[in-house]
């Protein structure tokens, strides 16, 4: 503000300016994130009361933590949580290792047609989740899949949609979808590794392997941590694949993952319990992500 404007009038304008710049972010953030979260919290603390017999009128009343008690007391809660935990413990390391290897390969001196491969690996992420799940559903189906047919003719009887295999069939779809995405984050981080460090290492006689293990991976550690956190959150929110697979597999229940359970509860008119479950799931995911961050940063320090 210059001397031509009175300070009294200039000050509010100065404090408003940052908010004007933030508005494009803040408004959708409040509308589509904070408000729904707040509404879920509100719902989770209420329940439906009814007056007047078998088809009486409904009223929403405050219920304290009753819905939370209900969620924690149900069998499906622990079962579905353990299921996604097991899923995360196996799927995330496999996927991130694959993504890291692909990124390092693309970044190495011997790689050819980098742009092409970068795009090819990334394509699965661009395919809508439901479409991808449907496509894989056909590839898994024991009667329709050419892959299963091929395996059968080779003497392998794979029951990819059965109760023992379905979780890992889902893990495969998730890996297929997100490996390229994670690879891209890691690859971008690799681009930031200073060329003079690798140059110096090479002068000292370090080979490709040594450079990757001793220099590149330590430098891109923050990117690996980031993809790890994203993957933990994604695993605990697993929804699309199991929901779609319900139409081809007789092994996916309506409470298969916490998110599928919340969806089923809401459609059975138990909105309040679904809200409580969602809040608990958010807390669990947050705690695990935070623990992962603490764990990885402490090791670094």
């Amino acid at each position, binding site marked *: 503000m210059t001397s031509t404007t009175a300070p009294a009038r200039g000050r509010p304008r100065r404090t408003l300016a940052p908010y004007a710049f933030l508005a494009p972010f803040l408004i959708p953030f409040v509308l589509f994130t904070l408000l729904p979260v707040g509404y879920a919290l509100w719902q989770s603390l209420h*329940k*439906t*009361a*009814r*007056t*007047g*017999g*078998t*088809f*009486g*009128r*409904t009223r929403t009343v405050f219920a304290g933590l009753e819905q939370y008690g*209900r969620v924690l007391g149900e069998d499906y809660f622990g079962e579905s949580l353990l299921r996604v935990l097991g899923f995360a413990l196996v799927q995330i390391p496999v996927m991130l290792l694959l993504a890291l290897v692909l990124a390092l390969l693309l970044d190495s001196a011997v790689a050819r047609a980098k742009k092409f491969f970068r795009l090819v690996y990334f394509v699965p992420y661009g395919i809508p989740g439901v479409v991808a799940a449907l496509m894989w559903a*056909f590839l898994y*189906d*024991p*009667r*329709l899949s050419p892959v299963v047919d091929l395996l059968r003719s080779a003497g392998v009887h794979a*029951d990819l*949609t*059965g*109760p023992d295999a379905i979780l890992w069939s889902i893990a495969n779809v998730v890996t297929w979808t997100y490996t390229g995405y994670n690879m891209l984050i890691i690859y971008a981080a690799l681009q930031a590794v200073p060329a003079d460090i690798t140059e110096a290492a090479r002068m000292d006689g370090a080979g490709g392997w040594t450079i990757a293990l001793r220099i590149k991976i330590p430098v891109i550690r923050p990117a690996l941590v980031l993809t790890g956190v994203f993957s933990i959150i994604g695993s605990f929110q697993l929804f699309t694949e199991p929901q779609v697979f*319900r*139409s*081809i*597999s*007789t*092994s*996916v*229940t*309506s*409470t298969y993952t916490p998110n599928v359970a919340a*969806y*089923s509860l*809401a*459609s*059975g*008119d*138990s*909105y309040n*319990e679904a809200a409580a479950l969602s809040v608990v799931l958010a807390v669990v995911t947050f705690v695990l992500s935070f623990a992962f961050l603490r764990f990885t940063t402490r090791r670094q320090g």
Partner: protein
Amino acid sequence: MAMRDRTSSVRRCMLGGVALSLTFLTACGGGGGGSDDAAGAACKPSGGKVTLDYWSWVPGMQKAVDVWNGDNPDIQVELKTVPSGNAGTYQNLSHALKAGKAPDLGQIEYDSLASFRLKEGLTDISSCPGVEEAGAAFVDWTWSQVEFGAGGEDGVWAVPQDTGPMALFYRKDVYDELGMRAPATWNEYADQARRLKKEGKFITHFSQTDPNWFTGLLWQNKATMFERSDDSWKVTVDRPESRQVADYWQKLIDDKLVATDLQGFSPALYKAWNDGEVVTWVSAAWGYSTIRDNAKATAGAWAVAPMPQWKAGDRQAGNWGGSTTTVMAGSEHPAEAAKFALWLNTDPEALEILNREGGLYPAAKAGLELPALQQPVDFYGKQKVFDVFAQASTQVDTGFTWGPTMTDTYRFLSDGTANTIAGKSTLGDVLEDTGTRSAESLRKQSLDVTP
């Protein structure tokens, strides 16, 4: 009970002579409150041009809607073709109701009417023009369902569309080749399953996502799942009649005589039909078009016979599905919506289209006289298949009562079935568990449950 009270208070009000509509609404409508009362009390045509949204999954429904739209320029119906109820539409309808964005008209099966009424998702159309007089046009048990068995004292909540009397679809050519006849009893059906297994065939599939199919089997054995009194509900899912059905199918599953890896209505099932891997299906009247449209390679080879019986000489049929057309809560044009719903389900031209395109077996008495329902059907080896269903529909126990949380009850049944297929439980366990959890669901909705 509450509804009945309100109806009588409305009557008292009318007798009291407070006839001016405005006073009437404020004086008497206020007691109960809510959209259904307002609509029930004042179901008047809106005037002017209206557009109605309609969600349905009947194949070919658009053709019937087109006929209506051509004849009624002022009441235009916009059809959205949706997945069948339990495959997602009921969930979407619930969410839409919650969000206040439900369509004017919906398709809801008889078993889910109580659920939707419980969540105040339906409009009582009893006072809409033409509705009360329409009752006589429908097969008695279907009208009783939309009146919730209260003979009009408790409102009219839907217009019946079709019914699903059950029978046995079977591959007559395969049966003939093996020297078998359509089974008279369930025991005979199990013997045939063993015989077919030797030929590398499954007698049928045991779907995990069709709990309402299983309920149809329970219905045949008069195993009502719920009983309703004025103020409370009783859950009767686990009872000797249902145990008999469950134990029977458990044995077929244990002996690997039925295909347990096929979901109902899945491309894989259709392939198994076409390949002759699966050769029978106990299904409803509307199922005739499911087979016709999806097992084209087997045209002419199927036939229809009455459901196998638990006791030789019995004549009992189950019912699977059958839908109603409902005016959803929040519709701004209930009178027009009800008018369309009545036309759709009673007009001979509409009934003919719905039967031809969607294979619907009409709930309207006039519909049963349709010429198409008297004809031999080529796909079924020129058999007059609808004679079988006409007979079956008279053998359906019409006193069957649905619970108001069937979405949950079905969910428990189908989750339990998944566990059974995985070998972790038996169908008997599933009945017990479903009963306990259904009672819990009712309590969660703050309903009284009689133990």
